[in-house]
C-alpha cells in the first residue's frame, strides 16, 4: 500500500525537495514566476484564439480581433456541422479510441502483470521487444502495415483496421509493469500461499493497488488514437468511417473555401476535436505528474 501511496503524492507536497537553498531565493524566485507565467500565456494563447475565432461571425485577424466583442455567434459550429458529419465523426473517433483503450486495458494489464510478477520462458525476450517498440516509430512501418492491413487482410474502411496497429499501447504496458514491479513481493507470496490463482491475485490484490497508474496509462493511451491523423487517414477513404481528426483535415485542405467564414468553421471544428482530450486532461491532471510517469521512465 505504502508504495503506491507515496507515488500518488503530487509534486506539490514536496515543493522544497530540490532547488537552490533558501539564501538565494527572493529575486531569483520572482524571475522564475515572471518567466513561467509569461511562458504559460504564450502556450495558452493559441487555445484562447481557437475559441474566440470559432465564435466570431467574420474572421478578424487584427489584434483587436483577439478581444471578444459583443458580436459572438455559434454560427460557425452550425456551418461545420452542415459541411461535415460532425456527430458521425465524433462517434468514429470514439470507437477508434474505445477499441484501443479496451485492448490496452485488458491485454496490456495482463502482459504488464506477467512481465512484472510471473516467471515464464520468453519473458526476457518479450521485455526486450517491448523496449525496442518504443524506439522504432510507427510511422516508419506505415508502408508494410498498410500492405498487410489494407491489401492482405482487406481491412480498409473498417474500424478494426483502424484499431489494429494501436490495439495495445506499449508505453502503457511498460507503465503497468513498473507499477506491478513496485508492489512488495510478500503480498503475492501470501496470496499464493492462501491458494489464490494468479488471475484472482491480479484482480483483487494487485489491481486495486495500482488504480492511479491505471488512470495515468488510460489518459496517455486516450490521446494517442484520439489525436492520430496519419493512420486513419490512410486506412479510411469512406467519409462515413473517418474519425474527426481526418474529417477536419480533409475539410481544411479541400472544401474550406466554400463556407462563408472558412476560418471560423475550421476553428469550430478544431474546438470540437480538442475539447474532449483537454477536458479529460484537466479533470485528471493530478495523475499526470512527474512522479507517476517518472517511475515508468526511470525504469
Amino acid at each position, binding site marked *: 500500500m505504502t508504495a503506491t501511496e507515496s507515488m500518488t503524492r503530487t509534486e506539490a507536497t514536496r515543493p522544497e525537495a530540490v532547488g537552490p537553498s533558501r539564501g538565494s531565493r527572493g529575486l531569483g524566485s520572482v524571475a522564475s514566476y515572471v518567466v513561467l507565467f509569461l511562458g504559460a500565456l504564450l502556450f495558452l494563447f493559441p487555445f484562447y484564439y481557437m475559441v474566440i475565432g470559432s465564435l466570431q461571425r467574420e474572421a478578424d485577424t487584427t489584434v483587436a480581433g483577439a478581444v471578444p466583442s459583443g458580436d459572438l455567434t455559434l454560427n460557425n459550429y452550425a456551418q461545420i456541422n452542415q459541411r461535415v458529419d460532425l456527430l458521425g465523426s465524433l462517434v468514429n473517433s470514439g470507437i477508434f479510441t474505445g477499441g484501443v483503450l479496451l485492448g490496452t486495458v485488458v491485454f496490456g494489464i495482463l502482459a504488464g502483470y506477467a512481465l512484472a510478477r510471473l516467471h515464464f520462458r520468453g519473458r526476457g525476450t518479450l521485455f526486450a521487444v517491448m523496449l525496442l517498440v518504443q524506439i522504432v516509430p510507427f510511422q516508419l512501418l506505415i508502408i508494410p502495415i498498410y500492405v498487410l492491413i489494407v491489401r492482405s487482410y482487406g481491412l480498409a474502411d473498417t474500424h478494426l483496421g483502424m484499431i489494429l496497429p494501436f490495439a495495445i499501447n506499449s508505453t502503457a504496458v511498460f507503465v503497468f509493469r513498473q507499477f506491478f514491479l513496485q508492489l512488495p513481493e510478500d503480498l503475492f507470496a501470501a496470496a499464493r500461499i492462501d491458494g489464490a490463482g494468479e488471475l484472482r491475485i491480479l484482480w483483487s490484490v494487485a489491481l486495486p493497488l495500482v488504480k492511479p497508474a491505471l488512470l495515468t496509462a488510460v489518459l496517455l493511451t486516450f490521446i494517442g488514437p484520439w489525436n492520430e491523423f496519419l493512420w486513419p487517414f490512410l486506412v479510411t477513404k469512406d467519409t462515413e468511417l473517418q474519425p474527426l481528426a481526418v474529417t477536419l483535415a480533409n475539410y481544411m485542405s479541400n472544401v474550406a473555401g466554400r463556407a462563408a467564414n472558412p476560418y471560423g468553421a475550421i476553428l469550430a471544428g478544431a474546438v470540437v476535436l480538442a475539447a474532449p482530450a483537454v477536458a479529460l486532461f484537466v479533470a485528471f*491532471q493530478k495523475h499526470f505528474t512527474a512522479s507517476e510517469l517518472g517511475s515508468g521512465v526511470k525504469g
Partner: protein
Amino acid sequence: MTSVATTTGPGRPDTGRPGPRRPRWARLLGRQPLGILFAAPYAVFLVTVFAYPLFLAVWISFHDYFFAAPGAQVERPFVGFDNYAAVLSDPEVRQSFVNVAVFLVINVRLTVVLALVLATALNSVVHGRTFLRVSYYVPYVTASVALVAVWLFLFGQNGMVNEVLGPLAPNPSWLVNSTLAMPVIAIFVTWKQLGFFILLYLAALQGISKELYDAAAVDGASRWRSFLSVTVPGVRPATVLVVILATITGANLFTEPYLLTNGGGPDGASSSPVFVMYQKGIEQGNPDVASAIGVILVICVLLVSLVNKRLLERE
C-alpha cells in the same frame, strides 16, 4: 530471471535452494507458465504489427513490389539495391532529408534548452503549480490537426502575427516562404511537444540530492552557476532520453507538412521523409521505393541517436 528454473535440474548438484526439485514442465516453461498465457495476446500483437512489418519493410525494399488485389499471385522479383539507388538519386527525397535535418537542428536544441529551463523554474516555485503545469502540458494532449488550424490562422498571409509585425512581416509570408516554412514547423512541434519533455525533466530533477545544491551554495555559487554545474550534469541521462525521443518525433513528421504548409510547400521546401513516403508509396503506388526511404530513415535515426548519446555522455 528465467535462468532460476534451470539451476536445480537433474544431474546437477543441489545448489542449496530450498523446496523440492522442479518438474520438467517448470524447466521448460518457467516457474509460472500461466505467464505465457497472460502475455500471449501482447506477444502476438507485437509480432503482427511490429516484428513482421519490420521484416516486411526490409523485404519490400529489396524487391520490385507493387500493390495487387488480395489473393492474387504475382511475381515480385528481387532487385538488390535498385530501390535504394532510385531513392538516393531522387532530388525530392534528398530535399526531404535536408529539411528534416534543419528541423532537428532547430527543434532538438530548442526543446532541450526550453524544457530544462522551464522544468527547473517549475520545480522551484510553490504557487500556481497546477495552473502552470496544465498550461505547459495542454498542447501535448491536443490533436495536431486542431492546433495546426489555429497556426494557419495566426501565421497566414493576413494572420495576426503579420498584423502585429506590420512592415516587418516576411515576404513571402511564413508558410509560403521557402526559408521560413521549415523553421515555423520546427517551432510548432517544439511548442506542441514541450510539455512532455518538461515532464521528463521534472522527474529527473527529483533525483538530484539537495546536498549538492547546498554544497554549491556554500562554495558561493550563484543560482546560474549551480544550474550549470549541478542541475545540467545531474539530469544528463534525461537529456540523452529527451534528445533521442525528440529525434524520433522529428523523423516521424507528417501532419504538419501535410496541413500547415499544404503538402510540404512551397515547392518541397518543407516536405519530410514520411510525407514523401506517403506520396511515393501510397499516392503513386511505389511501396518498394517508399520502404527503402523508411529503412534509410530508421538507419539515420539510429546513427543520429548513437552519435548524440556518445557526445552527451562524453561531455
